[in-house]
């Protein structure tokens, strides 16, 4: 066999092998099948992919990032959406107290929350979970999470326990985030930078109150359901693959308004305010009522109290 022929032979064998591998790849593509979920990924400007962490950006960079987001939201939802960056006020530390005697399980808070916070719709992502418990017990594992909305509440022999983010002073979710995409603001609110979160879900594992939600898909947010009054760190529209959570409606409360859940509560069970203001209603509750906190033994120091009349 001449040397030339040998080389030809070698090349032939090699090309056959490459063809074979190519066939394997092709067959793999066919076997991968489709899943039936729609893929609706927004078009983004390059700058959004490379922008820095919210707290690392200069004021100019934040301005740019906000303008970029507002442009994207406009083209994505065909609606003007304002993204505020209102900073925390000094000498403010937000706290919440909930009167479980007054709570009747209407779940108006749950509804109001989904109306202002631009969560994924249908099925609705909800930040607040109201548990229905038998009177005489306090075992969460015996609670009903999906008590029927058609049945009349309060049901006889039951009481209700709404749970949402407790904005812990010692938040385990913040400690566990590998990239500091979630942190505690000076006014005590634990926030997420949706443009920084890598979606590992470590924080979800860490939360004792099951208060964190993940965007398993690109949120389904119809134009007419959008609240255009948003904040960078709270209710601006999110995207797939990132974490989100209750921020005590930071976009409202930093402007001195009530959180939506408090505003919607028909029984006045909810008390929200500044823990550093001795004349606030929340301070009055903490000083004059017998209060307790859920899972206080875990030392996360929640700023969410329960009390009864």
């Amino acid at each position, binding site marked *: 066999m001449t040397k030339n022929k040998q080389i030809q032979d070698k090349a032939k064998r090699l090309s056959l092998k490459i063809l074979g591998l190519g066939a394997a790849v092709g067959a793999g593509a066919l076997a*991968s099948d489709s899943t039936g979920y729609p893929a609706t990924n927004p078009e983004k400007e390059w700058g959004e992919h490379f922008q820095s*962490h919210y707290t690392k950006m200069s004021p100019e960079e934040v301005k740019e990032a906000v303008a970029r987001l507002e442009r994207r939201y406009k083209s994505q939802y065909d609606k003007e959406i304002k993204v505020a960056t209102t900073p925390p006020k000094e000498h403010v530390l937000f706290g919440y107290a909930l009167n479980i005697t007054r709570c009747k399980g209407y779940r108006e808070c749950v509804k109001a929350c989904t109306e202002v916070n631009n969560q994924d719709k249908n099925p609705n992502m909800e930040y607040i*979970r109201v548990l229905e418990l038998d009177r005489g017990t306090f075992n969460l594992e015996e609670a009903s*999470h999906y008590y029927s909305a058609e049945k009349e509440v309060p049901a006889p022999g039951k009481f209700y326990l709404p749970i949402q983010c407790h904005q812990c002073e010692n938040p385990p979710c913040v400690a566990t985030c590998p*990239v500091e995409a979630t942190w505690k603001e000076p006014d005590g609110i634990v926030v997420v930078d949706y443009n920084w979160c*890598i979606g590992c879900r470590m924080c979800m594992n860490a939360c004792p109150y099951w208060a964190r939600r993940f965007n*398993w898909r690109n949120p389904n947010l119809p134009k007419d359901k959008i609240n255009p009054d948003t904040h960078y760190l709270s209710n601006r529209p999110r995207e*797939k693959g990132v974490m989100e959570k209750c921020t005590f409606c930071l976009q409202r409360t930093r402007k001195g308004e009530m959180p939506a859940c408090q505003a919607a509560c028909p029984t006045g069970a909810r008390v929200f305010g500044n823990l550093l203001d001795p004349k606030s209603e929340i301070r009055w509750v903490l000083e004059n009522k017998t209060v307790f906190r859920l899972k206080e033994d875990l030392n996360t120091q929640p700023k969410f109290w329960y009390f009864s009349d």
Partner: protein
Amino acid sequence: MKTIKNIGQFTLFCAEHAFKGGKIFWGWIFFLVFLASMGLFTYIEQWRKGMVTTGLSDQVSWGLYVANFTYLVGVAAAAVMLVVPAYIFHHKEAKRVVILGEALAVAACVMAILFVSVDMGRPDRIWHFTPFLGKFNWPSSLLTWDVIVLTGYLLINLCLPGYILYHDYYDSKADQRIINGVALLSMFWAISIHTITAFLFVSNTARPFWHSALSAPRFLASAFTSGPAFIIMTFALLHKVKIFHIGWNIINLLAIIVSIAMQINLVMLVAELFTELYNAGAHSASAQYLFLGLKGYHNLVPIIWTGILLNLGAAILLMVKKTRENHKILFLACAMAVVGVWIEKGPGFVIPGYIPTPIGEIFEYAPTQVEVQVSLGILAIGGLIFTLMLKTLIPLKAHELGTNTSSHG
């Protein structure tokens, strides 16, 4: 200059041998490439549509991917069971095969890293990990620790054998002090990768099933069961197809390691079962769900008991000298241990941590076809890496030993 040329030549030699083989070899590669590309195309679906394509939920937010990750970290750590006898105790046969263990560690590390990557919602933001450019929440976040120890372990297992083989190939003298130092480091490193992976779970005080001091020791025991068991199976196969003469001495040594590790693992299982179930309070709800079923939900019960029975069977077969030294039965026992530990430490550890949720909801999880296909793809990539490394290493080792083993084309 000469070193660079030498390294080039050495790399060429390795690459040449990696892709030399007969029909069976190419059939095997074809099969793995098929699975890997299926995994890749399936992953593209998941990437485009989001993780809604998985069976994961806000209730059970880690599943099959993390289960495989946890298991493979253990397999990677098990290389230390060859490193110690080879480099520290200068066990002759261990020295000959230690490199195969290290190759397995490399493949397992790569698979583990891939499994974490496909579990991330935004892998495009991986650069957020980089110091200075991004934010690296070390030492607070256990995941940053895991990133450090896994990449470090991968590098160690690439560099140590690379260094030795390079010197073997050129018949030059490798510095024994460097080898000993790195081998010692890799010993502690192997323990650390698995301990830290356990701490990833243990650190969650809100999840009592994971928040147990026994988690990390159990991880180690089960790792030193399944890893060496897998190595035994590979060795037996290599021996059988006469590619590489392993020697039963080292296989028997590994069999004893698997046997002891499995017994320790089972003792810890019993301790856990007693602690969780004797006075079953709210804290043991997850364990009840796993082993007995909870309020009519029992998806995992048949699976975990299959795993326990496999482990128990393997332990008995390995404990008795007569069955342990019968190579067919040993192979069977090792296969049982590999599957049993996967069940126990993969789905049997990760999923019940989420059920019930910290506020008491029971929501079950089952993987989707997407998760299964992506997982198979990653395993195939690991298989490719391991196969190609073996193809390179065996002729190199043959070269060193002066024996004439096959490199047929």
